[in-house]
């Protein structure tokens, strides 16, 4: 029954497969890849060669500078002596002035552990928010007390003030929880009144006890500086402007004409002017609007203005998200008999905030970068420290590249990290079409 016997007339039939052969050299491995990706056409080849030349020049010109770098010296002159005519960076400025770059030049050096600890705790506090799926939600309690802990760590002073500030929020929250089921407005205003009452009582108690020797010595705001200042401004302003931005966005979308127009004018005004002018307001104009005897320090005024600035941008991002939700969601919420606050809290905002994450992260990254602008109103943040005390000193006058590239690197790490996180979060939250 074999084939061979029945088809004897055929001269030759191969019975077994030929062994597979390796693809031609030009169709496999590196050669195939580079032919497809680098040399697929004439113009591509030219581009590849040009890019290669560009990379070569960048590497050749920067490699000796990086590799010959001097890490131990007291001044730029000593750097030059050590280098002895060779090309090389003078990175000694970073090892000698790292404390000024990170903490500013007046923060007491024996207290550096405090902002450092606050920074580490910031990561701990942010973690349950950032990776909410993977970490126990109990950790959010720490997030809630973190702002007060951080304030106390960085600014120091009597421990009672942050404790009472925290208590005010706790009392407000409890009152809100009691009243919100009856009416949103009652809960909202009740919470505010309860919080203020607590703060007033706390203030009285604190002043009655008088100023003893505080556990952590108080550091005035004007001593904050360096990258620490950028981080403080960035985190405080973003976290404050988020609720404010949500409120503004809801106000702008609401059907109440007066509230709508207040929000529209605020948002468009703030978005229409550069941050620098708002910082000018903070440094030279805002003081005129406070009560005559009040002394509000510069850092607080700057926080107020930057928060206003970023809340307007966040409001626009959230407004976009609100507008992107299908009308059916609003109508469904209404048909369930939910009132406005309930519909917003339970139906609309959870969806709107989810789709506005990339936009909010963009604003946050932009804002963090913009905190360098405070150096223009003579605050000594990272850029201000470099341009001011360090480059003006006789030891390090002329060490531009090392310092500015270090600053650029610090910002790059933070901003790139945040934007990578936001992309990860977007994938994580994508509940549609997998």
């Amino acid at each position, binding site marked *: 029954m074999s084939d061979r016997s029945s088809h004897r007339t055929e001269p030759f039939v191969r019975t077994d497969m030929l062994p597979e052969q390796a693809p031609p050299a030009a169709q496999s491995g590196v050669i195939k890849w580079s032919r497809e990706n*680098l040399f697929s056409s004439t113009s591509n080849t030219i581009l590849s060669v040009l890019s290669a030349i560009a*990379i070569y020049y960048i590497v050749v010109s920067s490699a000796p500078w990086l590799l010959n770098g001097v890490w131990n010296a007291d001044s730029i002159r000593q750097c030059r002596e050590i280098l002895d005519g060779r090309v090389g960076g003078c990175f000694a400025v970073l090892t000698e002035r790292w404390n000024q770059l990170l903490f500013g030049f007046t923060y007491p050096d024996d207290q550096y552990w405090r902002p450092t600890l606050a920074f580490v705790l910031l990561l701990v506090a942010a973690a349950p928010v950032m990776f909410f799926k993977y970490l126990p939600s109990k950790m959010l309690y720490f997030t809630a007390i973190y702002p007060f802990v951080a304030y106390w760590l960085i600014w120091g002073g009597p421990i009672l003030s942050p404790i009472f500030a925290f208590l005010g929020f706790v009392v407000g929250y409890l009152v809100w929880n009691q009243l919100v089921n009856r009416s949103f407005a009652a809960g909202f205003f009740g919470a505010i009144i309860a919080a203020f009452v607590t703060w007033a009582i706390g203030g009285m108690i604190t002043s009655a006890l008088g100023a003893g020797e505080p556990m952590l010595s108080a550091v005035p705001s004007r001593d904050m500086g360096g990258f620490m200042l950028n981080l403080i401004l960035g985190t405080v302003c973003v976290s404050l402007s988020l609720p404010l931005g949500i409120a503004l966005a809801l106000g702008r979308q609401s059907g109440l004409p007066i509230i709508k127009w207040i929000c529209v004018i605020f948002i468009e*005004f703030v978005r*229409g*002017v550069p941050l620098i002018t708002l910082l000018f307001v903070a440094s*030279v104009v805002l003081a005129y609007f406070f*009560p005559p005897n009040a002394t509000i320090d510069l850092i607080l005024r700057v926080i107020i203005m930057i928060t206003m600035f970023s809340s307007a941008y966040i409001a626009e991002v959230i407004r976009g998200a609100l507008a992107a939700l299908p009308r059916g969601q609003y109508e469904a919420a209404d048909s369930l008999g939910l009132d406005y606050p309930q519909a917003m809290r339970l139906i609309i905002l959870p969806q709107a905030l989810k789709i506005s994450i990339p936009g909010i992260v963009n604003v946050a990254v932009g804002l963090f970068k913009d905190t*360098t*602008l405070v150096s223009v109103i003579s605050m000594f943040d990272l850029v201000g420290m470099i341009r001011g005390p360090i480059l003006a000193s006789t030891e390090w006058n002329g060490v531009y*590249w090392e310092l500015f590239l270090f600053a650029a690197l610090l910002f790059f790490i933070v901003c790139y990290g945040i934007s990578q996180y936001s992309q990860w979060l977007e994938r994580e939250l994508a509940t549609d079409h997998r």
Partner: protein
Amino acid sequence: MTTLTDPPQGSFRLSMLLNDTRYRSYTFQFIALLALIASFAYLGSNLVENLRAAGLNISFEFLREPAGYDINQRLIEYNSQSSHWRAAMVGILNTLLVSFLACVTATILGVVAGVLRLSNNWLVRKLMSIYVEAFRNVPVLIWIIIIFTIMTAVLPAPRAFRGDDATASMLFDSVAFTSQGVFVPGLVFGTGGLVVVLTLLASIVGVFAYRKYRVKKLYDEGKVLPGWITWAILIVPTLVVFQGYALTAGNQENRFLVPTDLAAGATTLDAFGERLVADEQNVAYCSVNGSTASSVGKSMILGLPAVGLRNPDAVRMKSSYYATVDAAQPGLADGTCNMLVAPAAQAEQISAQSDGALSVLETNVKNGAPIALNLPYLANFRFTDGITVRGSLIALWFALAIYTGAFIAENVRAGIQAVSKGQTEAAASLGLRPGRIMNLVVLPQALRVIIPPLISQYLNITKNSSLAIAVGYMDITGTLGGITLNQTGRAIECVLLLMLFYLTISLSISAVMNLYNNAVKLKER
């Protein structure tokens, strides 16, 4: 018979303000308005009280007072005696200048980088992502300062251009990169210069008209008109007019006048130059307006090989310009001018007027083009003539352009990717060539996505240009918000005007954007 009843139309009760949704909104708005008025009243009373305590008032009178400071980079006439208002105007123009330059450059950079990020060349793709990520994630202020450092601390000082063993040299003998700024050639308009410019503008209009006609012809009759005519329309008329003026009106002779007592027997320009070098005398070079493109005479002197005036160590040169012959005459007589260029007729007038004491050596200067380049050259300690572009302007311009270019690249990439692949494939199956697929199918659809964010990037550039104050570029923030504010102490007024200016710009750009959006949005039923 219906069981449905309307809600009772009963009389209005006060509790309805809180409980009835029809009235509740009025309550809330009233409360909001009240709160707003109260907070404004509070802030206003604080302001009044603080101002009274400080002995100040709100007044814009200071704008009329002389500013008393100099601005080195300016587009309009300004000196330290001009008013603060004028200084603000200079600032506004500087803001618009740097914003415009940065917008154009950022668009070019962004489009190129955005398209290259989608290239199928792996190396280019990676390079462009590095560019985008590196610049998006670092504050623009740091980039501005880094480029400013290159412009001021790394580029050679003008003295490096001096002497035989100069360590630096000018690019094409016309552009000098120095630590005091970049010196580039300016344009000098001679006879007919305006006509040449108008011709060029008319040609550009003609090119657009021709292209429109070409498309119409193609669609109506199926005829393809040649494309090279576009170039012909663009170049030929301008070239003809330019040459026409250069050979006729522009070629009229100008006289090079040198007082003979200075020339001391020299009968040619070369001989006179040699005398100047030998005596180590400065050249005071003047020209009468309207006659010679001032650069023609100047480049003559600079170009005299025998004299060696190119070596600026030998002779220092100083140039000045006179509006009329009458103004030039005394200058020539009292020696503030020892070389003067005037048109032939006027030169004769000077020769005729000069009495015996001032006999004049005349040499013909070849004058030509209706538009000539005014090249910069190294005078005593710095470069003069041409156009000075300060390091601060360049730093701001390029930093803003490169920084914003990274954002625009992302917008462009997103826009191109937003056009579905089916569109490209459908166009290809119609038989369109790749270039036409891009131009006729992909780009028109991508632009709809790209342009709105692009315009908001332009807005960002304009607002970020206020960072000029960090590098001392005198834009509106540097003048009105910087020196004027510090000198007069009128913080509220200055900041108010500053905000008003930026607000006007922003709102007008958004208005344009809305118009555009309405024009290109998909027409849906």
